[in-house]
C-alpha cells in the first residue's frame, strides 16, 4: 500500500487564498448554489492532482471515480467545516482519508481474489438447490421499481437488473457515473422503504 504523506503545500495555490475557499464554503453552507459550484470547481483540479500523484498506476477513469468519491465525501460532511478555521487542512484531511480508505478497500479486494489459470469450459458439478431457492415477492418489487422517479428506475434496471457496468450504463443513459451512483443510492433507499411498507 502506498504511504500517503500529503502536505498543505501540495494543496496550496498562492493565486487562491485559503480564506477565499473558506468564504465560498461558508456561502455554500447557507445554501448559495453558485458559490458551491465555484468552490467545487476550484478544488477539483487540486484533488485530481493529488489522486494522480498517489494513484499514478490507475486508469484515467478510475482516477476520476476517486476524485468524484472525494467530492461526494466533501459534500456529505460540509457541515463539519468551521468557517473560523482554515479551509485547506479540512479538505486535505478528507482527501487523505478517502485515498487511504480506497487503498484499504483495494487491498481487501485483491486479498480475496483467486487467480485461476484455466477455467473449466463446462460445469463440473450440478447446481445446488436452484429449484428450492426462496424468492421474495417479485411482483411487489417490480411495482416498487416502477414507482421510482425515471432516473432512479433506469439506474436500477441497468445496474442491478441488467448487470451493466457504471460506465456502460452512463453511456447508455447519456449521464455520468457519479450521477448514476447517486441515483442508485437513492433508489435502493427508496426501495427498502417501499418494500418494508408492503
Amino acid at each position: 500500500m502506498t504511504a500517503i504523506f500529503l502536505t498543505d503545500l501540495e494543496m496550496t495555490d498562492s493565486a487562491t487564498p485559503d480564506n477565499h475557499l473558506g468564504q465560498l464554503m461558508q456561502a455554500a453552507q447557507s445554501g448559495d448554489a453558485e458559490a458551491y459550484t465555484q468552490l467545487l470547481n476550484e478544488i477539483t483540479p487540486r484533488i485530481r492532482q493529488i489522486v494522480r500523484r498517489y494513484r499514478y498506476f490507475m486508469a484515467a477513469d478510475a482516477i476520476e471515480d476517486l476524485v468524484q468519491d472525494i467530492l461526494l465525501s466533501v459534500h456529505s460532511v460540509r457541515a463539519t467545516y468551521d468557517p473560523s478555521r482554515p479551509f485547506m487542512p479540512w479538505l486535505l484531511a478528507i482527501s487523505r482519508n478517502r485515498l487511504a480508505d480506497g487503498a484499504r478497500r483495494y487491498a481487501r479486494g485483491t486479498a480475496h481474489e483467486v487467480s485461476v489459470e484455466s477455467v473449466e469450459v463446462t460445469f463440473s458439478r450440478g447446481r445446488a438447490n436452484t429449484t428450492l431457492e426462496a424468492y421474495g415477492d417479485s411482483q411487489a418489487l417490480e411495482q416498487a421499481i416502477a414507482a421510482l422517479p425515471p432516473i432512479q428506475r433506469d439506474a436500477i434496471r441497468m445496474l442491478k437488473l441488467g448487470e451493466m457496468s457504471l460506465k456502460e450504463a452512463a453511456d447508455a443513459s447519456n449521464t455520468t457515473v457519479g450521477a448514476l451512483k447517486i441515483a442508485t443510492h437513492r433508489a435502493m433507499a427508496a426501495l427498502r422503504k417501499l418494500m418494508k411498507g408492503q
Partner: protein
Amino acid sequence: MTNSTEQFIRQLAQDARPVRPLARPHARAAIWLALTIAYIALVLLVMPARHDLSSTLSEPSFIIEQIAALATGVAAAVAAFATVVPGQNRKWALLPLFPFVIWLGSLGPGCMQELRRFGLQALPLQHSLWCFPFIVMLGALPAIGMTVMLRRGAPLTPHITAALGGLAAAGIGNLGVRIIHPEDVSVMLLVWHVGGVMILCALAASVGVYLFNWRAIVAASQNTDR
C-alpha cells in the same frame, strides 16, 4: 476538467440544501454532557443512593476518584467530537490520557494497602452482579446519544472515535454507579469498574467501523438532500 465531473459537480450543487455548521468539539461535548448528567440525575431520583453517601463524600480519595473519572469522561467526549472534524489535530485523541492516569492513580494507594493486608491470593475480588444492570442502564443511553451526535461528523478514525465515545459514556456512567453502589474496595474497583470501562472501550472500538463509515454518511446526506 472532464465532462463527467463537471456534470457531477452541477448535480451536487443543485441538490445541496443549506446546512448548519457543527458547533466546536468542546461545545458539542458540553451539550452531550448536560444531557447525560440530566439523565443520570433522573436515574438517581428513582434509584436510592448508597446509604453511606454522606460519609463517603467527606473522603478525599473518593472525591479525587470521582473527579478524575468525570474528567476522563469529559476529556474523552471532547476528544471524540474532535476526531470527527477534518483538519483537527490528531493529538486531541490523547486528551483523556492525563485524567485517566489520575483516575488509576487514585485507586493505587488503596490497592497497595489491600495487597499488603490480604496478599495476592486472598484479594477481595468478588463483585456483586446486581450493579451490572445499572452500569448498562447508566451508560447505554449516553452512548447512543454520543453515537448519534458523532455520526453527524466525518468518519476519519472510526475505531479511535468509537473507543473515545465509549470511554466518555462508560466513564461518566461509572460515576453514577459509584453513587448508587456501596463498594469501596480499591482492587475490586480497579478490576471491575476500570477494567469494565476498558472492555467497553475495546468493544466500541471493534465495532467503530460499522457505526462510523463513509458509506453510511454519504447515504444519510443524500437522503437529506433529496
